[in-house]
């Protein structure tokens, strides 16, 4: 499998998880912490996040993910981070036997 395929799949899984309320934007940011975002997102994307938050007056996980879409998450963040988010959500839902912190 190519990296593009893997990236597209993780983007789809993240998108589906958010659409189906498997995890919330706050759950995503619990794994994609500010340190992770700052370390991996390109400067222009960080600028967009900050500009959107400044325009709205607050920075919320929902607003962050409106700018950093699942496609961008899968493009820039390590997939291990995204997978931890997915696996933790599955654990919360009771379908994952592995407890993910």
């Amino acid at each position, binding site marked *: 499998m190519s990296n593009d395929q893997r990236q597209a*799949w993780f983007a*789809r899984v993240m998108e589906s998880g958010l*659409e*189906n309320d*498997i995890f919330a934007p706050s759950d995503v940011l619990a794994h994609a912490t500010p340190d992770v975002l700052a370390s991996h997102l390109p400067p222009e994307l960080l600028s967009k996040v900050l500009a959107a938050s400044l325009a709205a007056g607050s920075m919320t996980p929902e607003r962050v993910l409106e700018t950093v879409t699942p496609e961008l998450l899968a493009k820039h963040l390590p997939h291990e981070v995204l997978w931890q988010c997915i696996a933790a959500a599955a654990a919360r839902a*009771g*379908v*994952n036997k592995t407890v993910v912190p």
Partner: protein
Amino acid sequence: MHRCGCGPRRGEQDGGPVNLKGFFVATLQSALDLGIAVPDDVLRHVTPDVLAAHLPRPLWARLLIACLGAARVDAQLVVETIGMPNLCEHVPAKILWDCIEEIGVRALGGVVFATATAAASRSGAGPGPQSSRPIPLSTPPPPPAVEPRAGGAPAAVGPSIPTPGATGAEAELDASGRPRVPPGQRFRASTTGIGRLAASSSQRRPQAQATPPAPPLSAEPQAASGNAPRVKRGQTEADFDLETYVGGKDDWKNTLAVEDEQLVDWSASDETVTNGDELGRKR
């Protein structure tokens, strides 16, 4: 753009108030569409026994019809016939998650291991049926640990600072070989002042004899004769200009020498009025 927090909340079967089925459908279907997974990966978890236990009879009938009419029955036929939504609707979520977990773990570690495995299998067998095996890599390999040095003592990172108690020869010389001055002598001691004067009153230091300052050099011969004005403090020409020159009393006689013919006899002169009586008689 995704919908954050506004999706339907279903999934009362296994996962509580979330749409687990929709998530499973999207995840597994996209994995198949993108080539992340193959139908064999699904059938490895959704075995015929699982299907027999959970798939409704109408769906079993459809599956049987498709298999009977197909030239080749494989996992792809099963998955396509049942359909991912039906599969995720009836198969327990835990089984589906196990399948997704395997795919995800393999996707994470596939960069390192699966590529080589797939390449090796393709080179030997050619275009065979699509199949993939799970790779037992649950977490990325840890970074290489830094082993401690065998010597025991840690390596010096900063500049080498001699120990305070060093008294050897190397401690007395600096880098250029000059004797090192203890830091305490670089500054004036705090006891300078009256105390120092009182302490040294009995032992007066020998003082050098004061010598008069050398006379300022001048290009004029007069200065060379010793009649040059002495400049106070002998420092600047301005001091000399401000001084009144009173020296050399005999010099004016030489410079204003008058002959006897130039002298005027004031008493013999007719034009000279010497007293008031003579002035009245003339009038």
